[in-house]
């Protein structure tokens, strides 16, 4: 009996020690939590640039804390983005080749880097120059077919102008619609001989069981990885 008592005593003292450690190890953090909320949209003349989900990102850099590393901020389908940050001054960099647009020139010293002063909730629209904009997209359903039309406005002309590789209507069963394999169930190319008047149609696959589908027009610019899109349209049938 005595040995059992001894064991119990040991167990209790271990538990008690743990309890003391548990109480003493907690201390209030000496850093404040990230207090700034950075949000906004990628725009051209206040029109949002529509891209694929997670296709486009930009980087935030901050000096003054040892080695620098980029903080990637991903852009949503409708061109919007948000990030929870510490207050401070950041350099915002749109990486070349990322996104269906060119970054705007700020000034000689900064090039196309944008200085962002984050303090509390900050909203900033990043103005860029896209190669093309998808204008006036129209979607309709007739029978089992989704039909769409749009016009393309060429924004960058002259030396940096680029051609269109294909303009495609994508359908998906969820609201994420893009050229990414997982984000479309059907696609149909448009005739791109007349950019001001694109029309395309695609059949709804037979295995869709819901009574609605999401559609979107995407445009691939030759030599540019990320496509530019129209807004996502929910179609009910």
């Amino acid at each position, binding site marked *: 009996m005595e040995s059992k008592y001894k064991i119990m005593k040991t167990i209790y003292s271990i538990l008690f020690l743990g309890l003391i450690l548990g109480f003493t190890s907690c201390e209030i953090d000496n850093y404040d939590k990230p207090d700034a909320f950075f949000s906004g949209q990628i725009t051209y003349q206040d029109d949002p640039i529509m891209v694929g989900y997670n296709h486009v990102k930009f980087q935030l850099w901050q000096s003054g804390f040892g*080695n620098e590393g*980029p903080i990637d901020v991903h852009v949503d389908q409708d061109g919007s983005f948000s990030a929870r940050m510490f207050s401070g001054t950041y350099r915002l960099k749109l*990486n070349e*080749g990322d996104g269906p647009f060119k970054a705007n020139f700020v000034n000689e010293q900064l090039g196309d880097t944008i200085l962002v002063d984050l303090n509390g909730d900050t909203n900033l629209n990043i103005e860029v120059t896209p190669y093309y904009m998808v204008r006036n997209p129209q979607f309709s359903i007739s029978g089992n077919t989704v039909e769409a039309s749009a016009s393309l406005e060429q924004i960058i002309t002259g030396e940096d102008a680029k051609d269109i590789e294909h303009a495609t209507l994508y359908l998906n069963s969820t609201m994420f619609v893009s050229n990414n394999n*997982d984000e479309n169930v059907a696609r149909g190319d448009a005739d791109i001989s007349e950019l001001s008047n694109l029309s395309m149609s695609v059949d709804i696959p037979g295995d869709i069981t819901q009574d609605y589908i999401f559609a979107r027009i995407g445009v691939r610019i030759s*030599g540019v*990885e990320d496509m530019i899109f129209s807004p996502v349209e929910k179609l009910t049938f």
Partner: protein
Amino acid sequence: MKKSIFILMIMAVAISCTSDSEFLEREPTNILTQDQIFTDPDLPLTILADLYNRYNDFGTVKDWASLSDFNVAYWSEAGRYGHFQNTDRGYGDWGSWDYGYIRQMNLFIERLEASTGLDEGDKARFSAEARFLRASYYFSLVKRMGGVPLITNSEEYDFSGDPSYLQHPRETESAIYDFVIQEAQEVKNMLPTDASTKSRATKGAALAMISRAALYAGSIAKYGASTSQVSLPGNEVGIPVSKSDAYYTTSLEAAQEIISGQAGAYSLYNKKPELSDNFASIFYDKSNNPEAIFVEDFMLQSGKVHGFTISNQPRYGAEEEEGGRINPSLNLVQSFETLEGECVPLPNKDNSGNFISYDEIDGIFDGRDARLKGTVIVPGSSFKGRKVDIWAGVQLADGTIVSGDSRGQQKEFPGSNGQEQVVGFDGPIDGLEFTAQTGFYIRKYQDPKAGSGQRGVQSDVWFIRYRYAEVLLNAAESAFELGQSGISADYMNQVRSRAGITTELTPGDITFDRIAHERYVELAFEGLHLFDLKRWRIAHIVLDGIPISPDEITKDICDATKRETQPYGLWPYKIHNPGSPDDGTFIYKIVKPTRVTGADRFRFGNYYSEIGQDILNNNPLIIKNPNQ
């Protein structure tokens, strides 16, 4: 008595004290000093052996997956299906940045130079070998990263607090290629001219490296012009198009030096009358193999062995309950031409869309390029004398299919004779690892020796880094790009006739697609395909993230830009229809393994691997690669 013990003790202490100073000055017995090493030729050789051992291979038999990526095969291992379910590769994939290795090679070269105790002949050879290895690693770096800092001597920090003099910017991509070519040119005559030396650098190895490196540089210059976004303004990435002809000429000349026999007696391997066996033997016959130029060798019971055969042997009846991982895809299998030299799909259906039935299970593969059965184990062929058992099920007269979900399963079905086997012991069973889920296993680099499939023995098959057929194809490509299609056709025909193809190519037949296709089938599973896709700047076209439709898979099978985003399979079914002439025959169905849900996408940022942020932080002179 006590007194005498006391005296003895004092004496003992006194004696022991005197030897202390010697104790501190004893030579260490577990390290060799530099002076000691560079006197005996065996000792520098051990350092060199370590440098050889760290040679950077992209694909190697030590890592089966590295040889079978990019949908030339499906991976039949449960933990690896994710590889076929994603789209993008990381920008950092395939990167390398081992300047520690370069420093050790630099130190070795310098110390060897300064040493006095060695025979001059040994010294020259060791030095040439180390320079060959250093050039090889710079070649590896430039293939992966583009231009990198070129460090050719060991650098010392002076502890002044300012290390900025140790920071070097990236050289241009062509400067690194030039360095590789120039070093190999300089050392080639210091290396032995000996075709029987395979695992150490020889003149042949140096020339083969020149032919490959110059070809890569030439095609980056030529085809890089079409993808101007994959370049940097300082040419750290990208080579001006004006340099392409000079590189192609260098490549052709180096290849021709080997072909004309100036580097030793190299030739195509042609020892066996059966052409498929002959082709497979190139990769495991280690005695007087005239084709292998430079290899990583292995030896049984030495500790240096590999498990390629264990990982990939046909699973049924294997020496270990393991194997079957690499399942070559239909995409690759169908691109082996017919013996008449035609690119046609495997005939599984007739013109009206009905399945063609074959009496023999491998009937569909008859009359194909001998390299097919030398590279791939198809249904009906054998490994180590045992026939593989690959068939997917039984098809009844009414079209229903009876199959099983475990290897070699038996079932009763209408018209069966009691319990009958309904699926092969090697599968294919969709989703069951180690079965031939595409209907194929790999043959290339599999070791036919007894014991090679046992974990306790493993395999000593070598890995060939440069071989004669690649040199011929390098020469064929360079000659074609230089407008010498006649020479090109001759080299291509040598490779093709070894594979049993009877129709010779005429100079007019030589096109870019022909050459790309020949490399695809001849050099499959040798770790070269990615770099071909990269240097021709077609990786973003063939891996564009769009799934391959069943209609598309059998079209344009010899086009260089055919989509390669997903692996397909071809499954044999046994017809069960007693009384009909078709009973017991086989039909073939094209399938896509259901675990394949993603479609690979190669982004512009994948052409050159990402340089790590830690490297960029340490050296602000280094600039990032484009599109990342």
